[in-house]
């Protein structure tokens, strides 16, 4: 290209985001705005014996101080737990809800204890330091072993052994029988370690109260205003119509911004009581200890195979750390999301899973990119790889032999999940075909020359995308006199580029140029039904509703076209946004040209599109080659190939972007990220980006190649399967299998994530063979 040649921007979102004119929630200023600060527990487990806020009240600029009593007086409930399950005996799960502000006891470092509002953020912060709070510290449990020990300190009076529930899914007896008949059995215990999700925008909220209308306006980054408004209404017990949630640009979310936190409620209460706008902006240090953490799962997988390598049964015994309380989706992750696809892409006659869901003195856990799906995908393919090597079987052959065949769909798993489509062997062959498999031996020899162990790992993942909580997805579309189509729905973006993808769907369907389409998330929110963004479902959920909207617009316009052409409607048909006259003059007219010709009358053209879309089954094959420097233990991903079946692709650039981002988040977990708590004190030892190794630009992946392999799905109108989480699901097992393969060269046994230089170096040093 020539220097300075202007090119069209790739996405509709980009103009504002590259010029610093986006609207993130912390950017707003309002006249008379006050600033809140949270006083947090410095202890992991303690009784609050004195709470004296008098000095805080008296400090310069302070307008309000709130404690648990004030929240109770306002009638607020605790933060909700979304899913409650039963144990094998039919007893309901013990649910321990987190209070907005702690009363009597604190259960994790960072738990909100009190709230200060002042004229400036610095005044609020300074005043908070004057709080006189006495804590009587208690024993701390941060591991499964400590939490469930017979003499363990109990976090909640109603939860003996710090156990929330022992959940089971599948058929225990059938699995037991299969194991007795097996020729080969294997097991591997792995951990998907606790992570800090870390969207780059720290959590924030500001609110103001419209006295005349009696409506509190809440501005905060979220994944969809519908879900957030629902949680806020539940907790405040305020009428739904007395609050409106507004979200503009969202600086990443990954599951973390979809739910209401204490700060949302405190800001709302203060703004109503003080009759002023109130803002809270979390510091990164605060959100490390108060954003819900992710993962925190230990999965012990067992597999039974017959003499030919057919899988007879898979069993998982899981330990699910939910942190100090049951918040939002933690049970959903540990119970449903781990079990529904626990056979992966394979036909497995018997499945059984148990999940021991327990409490620790740590930040509560909820959804983080995949919410259990990447974890189980990781566990399945590590288990298969491990079993194959242990018994001298060919890992690829075992996969081929056990894949659900294309003609077997719809396929009902032993856990009663119905998969609709897939060509798993073809996708795997596609991936192997692009992965330069033949050169691996030479690359491995070359790596050794440079003092590195090169390992190659393959993984096949399958995941269930989100079914969605709402019954359907609606989208309202209307034209303005300039012929611009405005789309309104509830699903909010946090980097996925909805404005661009949705406009592309409209362009594909009715030929309206993307520049003539505007997407407005959640405005106007009232009267619309729809899902929050999550579980990789937005493109096909809201996207199917947009396709339906486009179809309605075509049908609606038909009489007008007939009138224009002076023919009968029966003589008109339409194909992909173009009207065609059957017979006669065989005239043609594109919808886009028609609507722009209407001028002011275009405002009469509007419709409500809707679609009901359940879960889909994105799947794919990822292959990684990881090079470990023998002298230092530093690992680098030399090559990464991925082939994903995400169904119909709307925006190839954004699909690639989602996969790259997801794979690198997986690399973050594979090679470094780990929220580590001190076992004695319950302090978070990795409480900043100086201790918590986020993936950075350098030294991660030298070569990345991605292709899609679309297999048709009829589970939604659009024919897409979702892509948001597949990068994490494919990368964890591919990378781990590659690391395991590298270590196998020196006879080292499998180790657990994160594969830090220290761990890899120690594994190589302790290995029976020298490189």
């Amino acid at each position: 290209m020539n220097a300075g040649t202007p090119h069209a921007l790739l996405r509709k979102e980009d103009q504002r985001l590259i010029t610093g004119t986006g609207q993130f929630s912390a950017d707003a200023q309002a006249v008379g705005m006050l600033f809140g600060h949270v006083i947090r527990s410095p202890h992991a487990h303690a009784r609050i014996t004195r709470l004296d806020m008098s000095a805080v009240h008296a400090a310069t600029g302070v307008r309000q101080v709130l404690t648990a009593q004030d929240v109770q007086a306002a009638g607020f409930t605790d933060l909700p737990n979304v899913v409650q399950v039963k144990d094998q005996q039919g007893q309901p799960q013990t649910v321990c809800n987190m209070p907005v502000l702690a009363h009597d006891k604190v259960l994790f470092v960072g738990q909100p204890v009190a709230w200060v509002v002042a004229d400036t953020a610095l005044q609020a912060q300074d005043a908070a330091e004057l709080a006189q709070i006495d804590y009587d510290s208690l024993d701390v449990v941060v591991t499964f072993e400590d939490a469930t020990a017979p003499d363990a300190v109990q976090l909640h009076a109603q939860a003996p052994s710090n156990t929330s529930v022992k959940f089971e899914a599948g058929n225990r007896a059938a699995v037991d029988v299969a194991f007795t008949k097996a020729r080969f059995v294997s097991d591997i215990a792995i951990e998907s370690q606790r992570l800090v999700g870390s969207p780059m925008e720290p959590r924030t909220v500001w609110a103001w109260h419209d006295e005349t209308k009696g409506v509190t306006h809440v501005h905060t980054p979220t994944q969809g205003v519908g879900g957030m408004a629902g949680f806020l209404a539940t907790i405040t017990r305020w009428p739904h119509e007395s609050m409106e949630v507004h979200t503009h640009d969202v600086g990443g979310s990954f599951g973390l911004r979809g739910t209401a936190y204490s700060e949302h409620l405190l800001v709302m209460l203060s703004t109503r009581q003080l009759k002023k706008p109130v803002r809270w902006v979390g510091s990164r240090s605060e959100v490390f200890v108060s954003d819900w953490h992710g993962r925190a799962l230990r999965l012990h997988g067992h597999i039974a195979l017959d003499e030919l390598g057919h899988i007879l049964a898979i069993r998982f015994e899981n330990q699910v750390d939910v942190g100090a309380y049951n918040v939002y989706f933690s049970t959903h992750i540990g119970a449903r999301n781990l079990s529904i696809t626990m056979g992966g892409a394979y036909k497995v006659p018997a499945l059984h899973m148990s999940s021991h869901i327990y409490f620790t003195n740590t930040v509560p856990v909820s959804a983080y990119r995949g919410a259990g799906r990447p974890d189980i995908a990781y566990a399945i393919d590590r288990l298969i790889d491990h079993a194959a090597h242990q018994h001298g079987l060919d890992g690829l052959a075992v996969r081929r032999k056990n894949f659900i065949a294309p003609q077997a769909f719809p396929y009902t798993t032993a856990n009663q999940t119905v998969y609709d489509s897939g060509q798993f062997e073809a996708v795997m062959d596609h991936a192997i075909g692009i992965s330069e498999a033949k050169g691996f031996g030479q690359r491995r020899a070359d790596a050794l020359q440079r003092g590195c162990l090169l390992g190659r790992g393959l993984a096949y993942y399958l995941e269930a995308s989100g079914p969605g909580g709402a019954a359907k997805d609606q989208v309202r579309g209307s034209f303005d006199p300039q012929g611009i189509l405005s789309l309104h729905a509830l699903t909010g973006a946090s980097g996925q580029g909805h404005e661009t993808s949705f406009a592309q769907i409209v362009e594909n369907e009715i030929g309206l140029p993307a520049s003539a389409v505007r997407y407005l998330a959640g405005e106007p929110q009232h009267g619309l039904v729809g899902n929050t963004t999550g579980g990789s479902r937005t493109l096909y959920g809201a996207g199917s509703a947009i396709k339906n909207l486009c179809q309605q617009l075509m049908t609606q316009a038909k009489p007008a076209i007939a009138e224009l052409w002076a023919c009968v409607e029966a003589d008109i048909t339409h194909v992909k946004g173009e009207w065609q006259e059957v017979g006669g003059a065989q005239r043609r007219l594109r919808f886009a040209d028609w609507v722009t010709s209407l001028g002011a009358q275009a405002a009469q053209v509007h419709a409500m599109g809707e679609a009901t879309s359940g879960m889909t089954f994105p799947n794919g094959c990822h292959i990684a080659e990881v090079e470990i420097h023998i002298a230092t233990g530093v690992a680098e991903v030399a090559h990464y190939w991925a082939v994903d079946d995400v169904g119909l692709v709307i925006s190839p650039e954004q699909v690639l972007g989602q996969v790259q981002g997801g794979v690198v988040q997986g690399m973050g977990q594979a090679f470094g990220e780990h929220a580590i708590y001190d076992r004695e004190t319950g302090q978070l030892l990795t409480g900043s980006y100086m201790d918590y190794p986020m993936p950075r630009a350098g030294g991660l992946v030298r070569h990345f190649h991605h292709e899609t392999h679309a297999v048709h799905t009829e589970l939604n109108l659009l024919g897409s399967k979702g892509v948001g989480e597949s990068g994490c699901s494919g990368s964890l097992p591919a990378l781990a299998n590659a690391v395991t393969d590298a270590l196998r060269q020196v006879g080292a046994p499998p180790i657990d994530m994160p594969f830090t230089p220290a761990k890899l170096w120690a594994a190589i040093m302790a290995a029976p063979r020298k490189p």
Partner: protein
Amino acid sequence: MKLTLTLNGTPRSADVPDRTLLADLLRDTFGMTGTHVGCDTSQCGCCTVNVDDQAVKSCTMLAMQADGCKVTTIEGLGANGLHPVQQAFSQCHGLQCGFCTPGMVMASVDLLRRNPKPTPAQIAEGLSGNLCRCTGYVNIIHAVQLASQVMHGNAP
């Protein structure tokens, strides 16, 4: 304390508490909210601006230290249309949520000033002080390569 600086080509003055950080001065006093604050330990680089043409994490500098300096924020970078680095970030899909983008762009501008034709490894090293959680960096490196090509004829 009183200070005067040239912000995106315009002389500006302010009277702020002495502990005010440059990032807060830019955002709260001057309304330049394109400069984002993503951490409090100078690790993420979202707040990167250019002070006398050098990339600086503005959360790491007191406002007073910029007294008399020339400060450029993302809002002032493309005053006459988009800067080639901004253009390249969009074209290469080097941004998703866009929160880290202003800092990434400002750091990249300084990187290309110091090294007009960087290798991919040098770009990765040069941007290792800026965190992105969405893109996986692959396209960010492509974007800086493209900008280098556009600005300096660097072959990709």
